[in-house]
């Protein structure tokens, strides 16, 4: 199903490299093209370099705590009276989310490419924290762009980044959330491209980022696949993950892509509900367009202006999505659904009370969708849910929401 790099049939434009079907590409200012070519070449070389891979693997194990457990959520399973639910515990990783899998890989690459300055965008702050963490460990300069609105909702992560020595730059333009943080990071990169490595936090952006981030996050799915086979002797029936840009979902899905019996479901942020337009359900309600360097589904108006989005979760509050998800949607290999803010908050509490695990608001969307999914499945079937991050960062915000 993957046709990355192929020249594919395309209704609008001639396909260049870095394509997933018709999606992807490299729609960026000319100034960045040589840097993307350099990055592509370096990534190509080091992704096949045993020394590099061994170093990455060592950091993932000893610094981050991989492999993460695949945990059978017995109480949640009993409560929902449906399939056996397994949680892939990315929330237990160092820094509290799956983001560090990608960040460490990119920062090791930045070192090999002799770039001393890192920039990153962040929504919920988890990618910013992961980048600041790697920068601190390797002694690199780090600037993180974050929407001013997100800095309020994810105050704790702003403090963590600063504690780690990163500069957090508030983005006041546009929607003051993740979309505009990426705009600002791209503007910084265009300006400082010769000295700076842009650590993109999801499977979005121009080629080679969607491929590179997917590969780095695939450790989630590779481990989960081996773990479930060891536990049950057979593949799961369904995979479930939240989708903002889509990196934890892509990381879980990709190693199962050829296991056609395994359903893949991505859960998007339905915000206040799809009909209200106050949501971030790009694959459910969007149309193809170009944003942040790639052709992919997009929330936009008829004239091609990108729409403002809304989600209770800063990490999902984004009008675009990774191009490979667009390809998986069109091909039917994966399904995409949305749950509302209220449902997600219910999922947040559900997992806390049933399993003693407080999830981040992002995977709380996936947890919430279990209520819909469970009744449609048999008890002898299994689901793996990517618990992409822990909820410490959200506790204060949710408590404020509850107090109205």
């Amino acid at each position, binding site marked *: 199903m993957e046709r990355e790099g192929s020249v594919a049939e395309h209704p609008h*434009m001639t396909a260049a490299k870095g394509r997933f079907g018709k999606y992807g590409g*490299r729609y*960026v200012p*000319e100034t960045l093209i*040589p840097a993307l070519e350099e990055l592509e070449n370096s990534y190509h070389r080091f992704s096949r370099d045993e020394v590099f891979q061994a170093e990455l693997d060592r950091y993932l194990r000893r610094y981050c705590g991989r492999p993460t457990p695949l945990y059978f959520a017995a109480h949640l399973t009993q409560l929902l009276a449906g399939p056996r639910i397994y949680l892939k515990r990315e929330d237990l990783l160092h820094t509290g989310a799956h983001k560090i899998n990608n960040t460490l890989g990119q920062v090791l690459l930045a070192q090999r490419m002799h770039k001393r300055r890192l920039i990153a965008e962040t929504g919920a702050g988890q990618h910013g924290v992961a980048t600041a963490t790697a920068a601190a460990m390797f002694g690199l300069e780090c600037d993180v762009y974050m929407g001013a609105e997100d800095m309020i909702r994810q105050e704790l992560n702003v403090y963590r980044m600063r504690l780690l020595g990163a500069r957090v730059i508030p983005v006041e333009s546009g929607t003051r959330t993740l979309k505009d943080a990426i705009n600002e990071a791209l503007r910084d990169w265009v300006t400082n491209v010769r000295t700076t490595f842009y650590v993109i936090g999801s499977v979005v952006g121009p080629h080679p980022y969607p491929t590179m981030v997917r590969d780095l996050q695939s450790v989630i799915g590779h481990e989960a696949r081996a773990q479930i086979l060891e536990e049950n002797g057979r593949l799961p029936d369904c995979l479930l993950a939240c989708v903002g840009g889509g990196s934890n979902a892509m990381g879980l899905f990709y190693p199962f892509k050829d296991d056609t019996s395994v359903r893949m479901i991505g859960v998007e942020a339905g915000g206040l509900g799809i009909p209200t337009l106050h949501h971030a359900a790009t694959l459910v309600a969007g149309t193809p367009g170009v944003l942040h360097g790639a052709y992919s589904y997009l929330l936009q108006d008829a004239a091609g202006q990108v729409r403002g989005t809304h989600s209770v979760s800063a990490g999902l509050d984004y009008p675009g999505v990774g191009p490979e998800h667009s390809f998986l949607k069109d091909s039917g290999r994966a399904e995409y659904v949305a749950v509302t803010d209220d449902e997600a908050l219910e999922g947040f509490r559900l997992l806390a009370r049933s399993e003693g695990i407080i999830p981040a608001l992002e995977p709380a969307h996936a947890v919430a969708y279990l209520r819909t999914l469970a009744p449609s499945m048999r008890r002898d079937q299994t689901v793996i849910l990517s618990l992409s991050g822990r909820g410490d960062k959200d506790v204060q915000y949710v408590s404020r929401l509850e107090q109205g």
Partner: protein
Amino acid sequence: MSRIGPVFERLRGSRAALMPFLVAGDPNLASTSQAVEALIRAGADLIELGVPFSDPIADGPINQRAYQRALAAGVTPRDVLGLVRDLRARFGVPIVLLSYFNPILQFGLDRFCAEAVASGVDGVVIPDLPPDEAGDLARHARAAGLDLIFLLSPTSTDARIRLAGAQSSGFIYCVSLTGVTGVRDRVSGEVEGLLKRIRQHTGLPICVGFGVSTADQARQVGAVADGVIVGSAIVALLEQDGGPARLEEFVSGLRASLDGAHAAKSTPP
């Protein structure tokens, strides 16, 4: 053939062309129309109009705010074509649109090219569309007779200069610096070397933009380039509520500076 080529033909060997930029619909379409009249009176050789977009990643804060004002006024790409049609009825000056790719993609590539030409647009610059991704648009633009102008920057390799040279028509848009649009204290020291490299690979006229904001900077750039693009300084003037008279005065100063550079070049000391 568009109206662009003949302008550079006419000016070849005399002086650099002056191409002011402003955002169409900032703060409304009627004011843009008046501003363009002022630019023409001031001696602009070509006009570059920005099509408003929500996420202008190649632009600095001045132009970003202008796009936001135009979007707040509800200006669409179709409105911009309407504006050009009105201007075209009165003026022969070449008009180039600067648009990000998504509005053109949503308009429909073939429809955009056909309707742009029918409205009197001569060329289009798309800052987030490198030639590698432009195949289908290039085909439609060629068929419609619309010049597709690609950008080159100080980081462009010789291979990329050859690619942009082969794919561009009308002129090459040379970005003077690594960065976004905006007002800068001085012209990037990389311009002259970059122009030399570009000229080794293409005979197209080369216009330099990004960070050219004063008469002095225009003269400096005009001495080595075929055209000078001044954007943010003009947009900032409009933002400060500079009316058409103030705009005309500023752009006349830019033009005099280019004329003077020519006079200085052609008369021995």
